[in-house]
């Protein structure tokens, strides 16, 4: 169920009528609406928003690492509708061990590079992604730099013992 301030958001309201069980939590803060979506339903929810609610753009996909909490990761989707001049943020919680979530590239082709970036820097795998390989780091790189347990100076140097 979504809270009262969130139901003011037209897209969130329609989404909660359509997929009441897929919305796990909702928040309205600083004028921005966030919905936590069941990771198993993310493609259905996105397809609905794209097809029936005119969210024709995916502005960005990223992730946040809440290590050592569990579930460790949050994948964050920033959706934008040009026609309705509306933005909404979707989030999916993903477990830390072998993190995996469905890809939304079938909904927006533009999600391709953003998901590759999240895979590269956080190590979250996207199922059914057409070309899931590293995008920013070298292909033989070990580890995922934006994880919180990855040191800022990398593994190559150990400044404390030098």
């Amino acid at each position, binding site marked *: 169920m979504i809270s009262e301030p969130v139901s003011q958001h037209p897209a969130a309201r329609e989404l909660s009528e359509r997929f009441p069980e897929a919305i796990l939590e909702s928040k309205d803060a600083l004028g921005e609406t966030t919905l936590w979506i069941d990771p198993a339903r993310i493609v259905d929810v996105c397809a609905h928003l794209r097809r029936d609610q005119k969210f024709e753009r995916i502005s960005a996909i990223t992730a946040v690492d809440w290590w050592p909490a569990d579930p460790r990761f949050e994948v964050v989707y920033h959706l934008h509708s040009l026609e309705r001049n509306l*933005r909404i943020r979707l989030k999916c919680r993903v477990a830390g061990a072998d993190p995996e979530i469905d890809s939304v590239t079938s909904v927006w082709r533009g999600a391709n590079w953003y998901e590759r970036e999240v895979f590269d820097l956080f190590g979250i795998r996207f199922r059914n992604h057409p070309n899931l390989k590293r995008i920013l780091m070298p292909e033989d790189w070990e580890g995922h730099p934006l994880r919180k347990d990855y040191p800022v100076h990398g593994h190559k140097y150990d400044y404390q013992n030098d």
Partner: protein
Amino acid sequence: MKALEDHPPVPVEERTASTLAPEPPPAPPGEPRRMVLNMGPQHPSTHGVLRVLIELEGETVKRAEPDIGYLHTGIEKECEVKTWAQAVTLTDRVDYLSNLSNNLVYALAVEKLLQLEIPPKAQFLRVMLAELQRIESHLVWLGTHALDIGAMSVFFYCFREREDILRIKEMFSGQRMMTSYIRPGGLALEPPRGWDARVRKFIDAFPSRVDEYEALLERNPIWLERTKGVGFIALEDMIELGVTGPMIRGAGMPWDIRKTEPYSSYDKFDFEVSTAEGNDVYSRYRVRLGEFRQSARIVKQALEGMPEGPWRADAPKIVLPDREKMKTQMEALIYHFKIVTEGYRVPKGEVYQVIESPRGEIGYYIVSNGTSRPYRVHMRTPSFGNLQGLGPMIEGCLIADTIAAMGSMDFVLGDVDR
């Protein structure tokens, strides 16, 4: 040095071969043969370190795949270990040709988290500087793009005006490029004496300079031949692939975040969204020429309507105090010490702030966990989104046209790789 032994470097011969250009399968008899051309990462027309794998059939591009990451510097990771105030200096280096836009979006996002009200004078100065930045960025684009195509002289004209803007930036902040001038809470320094006369002198002369560029290019048959009808990509594809900014407006769609989601008092300014029909390199050039004129209009309005009052917010725990106060008041000294050593704390929360940069939509997603350092900063940069449209745009083009088409995107590799 134990950590070093845990991660020995991978010998060159064991590295994966997939970074190399894959050899296409042999063509069946009667079919034309395809070859893969490696362009970059050091190639003058990529304006940075972009590598594109281009599959050619004769001189026609059949497939193109950008390979990025050569300028990846881990700015997002580095933000997490800086204080909120220090991270401003990193945002300059993301898009080094329009650093004030990046300063602005970061400042707006942090201020939204802090629920900080910015005085009108600071807002107007921000708008004025952001528009000067837009002019400067488009000048670099026009000069280098014309140079790529073979019109040498435009470059000198553009860089003449760019120098004026760099001098204005230096006057304000002491720096020509990495200014870090727009900061959470207002501006870094008080605007210098005589700044308005300097800006006015530049902006009064600027529209006639735009006419000069137009005169140089508009009747240049080589320029017209090489830009008209080149680099087409369907509007629907651009929207789906995340292409933004002048690329979209060059397809006739009047989408500008300054109008649709106004920030920093852009709603108080009277300007038009510059669009052009055609959806090719030429129309993108027309859009940017129009933006020169509209930005000049906005700067003029900012000069004329500049409100009186303070140039930074009244928030002693966030904004550094005056030197004068610091030496006479105990509280000011304490706040200064706290801000500089520990940094100010930002309440828990998350925010996604978007603005219209010279290249398109910049969105900063900032998560705070209530400490004095950002927990996560994600930069949705316009060049990254735009570059995703490169493949569909140049497929079917002639190899010579890829240079013009790529140039019309106006990407900055620092902005792509962060």
